[in-house]
């Protein structure tokens, strides 16, 4: 078919339209949450839903003032908790894990069995660790501390970091390093000047996945913390009380929590996609 001198493939357009219509439900929940969060309190429940309204920040004010509702520490503390735990876990696991991945890839330390052991660890469902962690942390008197969460998240994420960086280093050309060694480059210099710069795209990809994973984690955050070390997903869950569900402030809180993963997906998708592919295609 011709249209304005351009050849148009009707079938292709049809496919595009169908796919885009199909994709709407996937982003609608996120869109709807953002819309609800800026509605004035009276309109959150309006049926039929009001599409046009004066945006209001009421819900955000209510959400951020959560501390006054007897939750112990204020909302800002929960943001700090989530951030601190996630960043410490990401950086430390990345450093320790990439180091091991490098050793296994370059020197074949542990042969074929060691990588498999880490793969098994990576596939272990975190649920299995909840009870032992709960008991051990409790008996050590570490309940409700950020340290407990850092330990738990390391157990979940370290095997992932090792495995991912191992599979990545396997694909890196060995020749560049060899040339540097022949030129008399020391091991530590090799690491800082050549290996880390070459590996940085992979390290960023792993880092983003680990960071978002920690930021989103709920099960351990709920079982190991009670008040001071609480992270954001637990705070979101607290809007469901026995008396009522505070949808307005809840959606504002959810938007604040989701903002970070959404921004990562939109602006660092290249890394996320390569990370997911590397983690799965290779095992």
């Amino acid at each position: 078919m011709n249209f304005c001198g351009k050849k148009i493939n009707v079938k292709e357009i049809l496919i595009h339209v169908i796919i885009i219509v199909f994709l709407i439900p996937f982003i609608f929940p996120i869109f709807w949450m953002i819309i609800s969060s800026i509605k004035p309190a009276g309109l959150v429940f309006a049926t039929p839903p009001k599409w046009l309204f004066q945006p209001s920040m009421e819900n955000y004010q209510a959400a951020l003032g959560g501390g006054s509702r007897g939750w112990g520490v204020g909302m800002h503390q929960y943001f700090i908790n989530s951030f601190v735990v996630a960043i410490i876990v990401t950086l430390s696991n990345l450093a320790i894990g990439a180091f091991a991945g490098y050793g296994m890839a370059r020197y074949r330390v542990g042969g074929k069995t060691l990588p498999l052991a880490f793969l098994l660890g990576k596939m272990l469902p975190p649920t299995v660790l909840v009870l032992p962690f709960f008991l051990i942390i409790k008996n050590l008197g570490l309940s409700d501390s950020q340290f407990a969460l850092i330990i738990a998240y390391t157990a979940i994420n370290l095997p992932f970091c090792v495995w991912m960086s191992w599979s990545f280093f396997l694909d890196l050309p060995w020749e560049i390093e060899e040339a540097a060694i022949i030129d008399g480059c020391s091991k530590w210099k090799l690491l800082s000047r050549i290996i880390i710069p070459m590996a940085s795209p992979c390290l960023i990809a792993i880092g983003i996945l680990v960071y978002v994973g920690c930021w989103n984690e709920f099960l351990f955050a709920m079982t190991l913390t009670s008040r001071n070390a609480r992270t954001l997903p637990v705070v979101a869950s607290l809007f469901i009380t026995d008396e009522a569900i505070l949808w307005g402030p809840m959606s504002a809180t959810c938007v604040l929590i989701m903002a970070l993963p959404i921004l990562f997906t939109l602006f660092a998708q290249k890394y996320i996609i390569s990370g997911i592919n590397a983690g799965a295609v290779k095992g």
Partner: protein
Amino acid sequence: MLIRRNDKDRLFRWFTVAPSIIILLLIMVYPLINNFYNSFRYLTLINQRSGGIFIGLLNFLELFTEPSFLNSLWVTFIYVFLTVTLQIGIAFLIALAVYKGRTRLRQITTICLLLPKMVTPVAAALVWRFMLNYETGIINYFMSLFHIPRISFLTNSVSAMITLNIIGVWQHLGFSFLLIVTGLMAISNEILEAAEVDGTTWFQKLRHIIIPILRPVLTVVSLFAIINSFQAFDTIFMTTGGGPAEATQVLSIYLYRKLFIASSFGSAAAVSVILLVISLFISFSMIRVLKKGGQLG
């Protein structure tokens, strides 16, 4: 001199992996052993400090005669089966539709499908709960536009399960899609073009070329999807919480209830051991598939 250098070298080699191994022995292997030990003991909130009493296999025997546990095994199976089949089927169809088309369309599809995967599951579950509300939820409102009667999604055992499946598919579709699209794009054009020259239909091409080539990818994706759904906790906990009654009480929810509502730690440890055995079984079948495909070096 040479020997000493080699020794140092070997030391360095093991030094690279030592921190990871030590840390994981301490915080992963030790807790698992500890848990295994606890699964043979009568351990509750009260006698927890003294370490409980050894009761042999009683925890396990008790579990396998408990209707509620057997039910949660069954519910987990149904949940995983439905979520994974739906997810792989839909992901495959979308991937087939976009992999040869415009790059832009593929990128948009990837972002739209990846967002639900990256977004905080607890927050996502809360939005779904908000949208599924009987009186004020937007989904019931949309349905009323088409004169479909209101549905109380989360309080009927069948609709609750289906709703959870849909949320699970919504959440994990991007992952399967991404891997399948990557697999499809790796199929060389020559094979497909040769088939076209020979005059095969679209369906024949799919059945005799694309699916056989893609089989290893599909197997890996399915196993990953199984592991993902098997671990599902956040979304179920925040929407139905296992209810109505125990209709959506998957193993992870059952474990949570055993632990924090019944406080019977010994029994919960036994559930954890069973969970571990099932997931090891899935992991080992995955490793076997990967080894067969030559992806494990």
